[in-house]
């Protein structure tokens, strides 16, 4: 049997890009939510957690409309930035970043909130900027939360289906990720190929989550951080 690795490789490329981008966006956002006293904070928090409860098809549908060159935002993207997010890998990345945002932000935010406020105060009284404090003190002390956020975002992106189908479709090598490939193979009654993709995803996801649990246990044993 000819094994098709392309959807799997595409899936992991997507998940890795999304996780990397989410680390950049998620950490500042979580820090802001944990420390801000702004009045509109509940609105930001709600928007961040929306993907947890919203059906992926709903989110996918609105992203499809937004990215479509027939609508204002999609048109603007195409004219000014020369990007087309619809039916493209870049579109999948943007959609997945939005969809997996709570999986990164919520653990990291909980991590920040679990640290004593006096750590930041102490660092300020010792003459250090908040940015220095973030990298030297706060982030090193929420390593388990960062790892959880990264692993959950990665795993969640790997398992994504609805949003991707809506905005990416099923273009081999571009948007045909493993979850879509499985659906497609089952549709055409090609169970062996579907099983291959499904089994690889199953084993890999199991391995990742198991590693996370073991690492967290090791850190918990190493003492209170």
């Amino acid at each position, binding site marked *: 049997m000819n094994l098709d690795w392309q959807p799997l490789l595409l899936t992991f490329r997507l998940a890795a890009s999304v996780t990397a981008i989410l680390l950049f966006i998620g950490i500042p956002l979580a820090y802001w939510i944990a420390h801000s006293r702004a009045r509109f904070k509940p609105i930001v928090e709600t928007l961040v957690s929306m993907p947890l409860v919203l059906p992926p098809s709903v989110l996918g549908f609105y992203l499809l409309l937004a990215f479509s060159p027939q609508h204002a935002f999609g048109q603007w993207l195409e004219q000014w930035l020369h990007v087309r997010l619809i039916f493209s890998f870049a579109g999948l990345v943007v959609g997945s970043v939005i969809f997996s945002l709570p999986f990164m932000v919520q653990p990291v935010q909980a991590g920040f909130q679990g640290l*004593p406020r*006096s*750590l930041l*105060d*102490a*660092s*300020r*009284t*010792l*003459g*250090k*900027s908040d940015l220095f404090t973030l990298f*030297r*003190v706060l982030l*090193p*002390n929420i390593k388990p939360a960062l790892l959880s956020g990264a692993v959950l975002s990665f795993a969640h992106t790997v398992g994504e289906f609805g949003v991707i189908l809506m905005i990416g479709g099923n273009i081999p090598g571009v948007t045909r990720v493993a979850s879509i490939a499985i659906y497609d193979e089952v549709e055409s009654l090609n169970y062996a190929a579907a099983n291959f993709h499904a089994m690889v995803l199953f084993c890999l996801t199991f391995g990742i989550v198991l590693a996370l649990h073991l690492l967290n246990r090791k850190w918990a044993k190493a*003492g*209170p*951080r």
Partner: protein
Amino acid sequence: MIEIALVKTLQGDGAPFRLEVQAKVDSGCFVTLFGPSGSGKTTLLRMLAGIEWPDSGKIAVDGVTWFDAERGINLPPQERAIGFVFQDYALFPNLTVRQNVAYAAPKGEARLIDELLELTALSSLQQRLPPTLSGGQKQRVALARAIARKPSLLLLDEPLSALDTALRSRMQDDLAHLHRRFGLTTLLVSHDIGEVFKLSRQVLLMEDGRIAQMGTPDEIFLRRRLSSKLNLHAQVLAIRREDVVNIVSLLIGQEIVDVIASDQEAADLHPGDFVELASKAVSALLFKKKM
């Protein structure tokens, strides 16, 4: 010279609470802020550090204005020459003892760090992480770290309150020693009269958000408390009847004392009640304790 004139309204659990403080402290002096919980001592310290902002007023330290509401001056904590020792120590758990102390020290001050570690008896612990230290050791790291920045004002927020009596006494000696060695103007929040006498030259007595009295420990405590009566605050632990008398067990500090009460007195008492134990014309015996 440190000049403080601050007003801040605090939104506590109950009604808004107004903190209004005016004081002058000489440079190099060891000053204690003394008063009951909730009288605004910690908030005052935090405002001096720049972690909390007053509503109005002024703070000037050795001629430099740190805060002036009218002129719109408010230096961030980073630009105020302070050392702050927090009640929970706030040590950085991911850094070793040495890294914690060196965190704020000016570059190329390895000798100062060595000296501080030496003075606080931490040299042998310098590669340990804070979660593995005892309370007293953590306290010394916090103190060394605060001093390493070479502050002009050292602020101590009840740093000794979590330690047991013997350790506390040793830490007080260390504090006094460090104060003399570095000549730092020091402001200590304390509930402990013994500590105040041992360490400070000046006391600011705070009550309900104001400075009720200012003076030396002698002036504040001895002149108003001296009386020929022995007067102790106690809590009733248990009441039991033996033969014709009632024995009431009282907790005074950490000591348990039994006293006799008449039926009339005992009828009104219940375990958990707070009472005042007074005895007139005692001839007290004093024994020095070995610590």
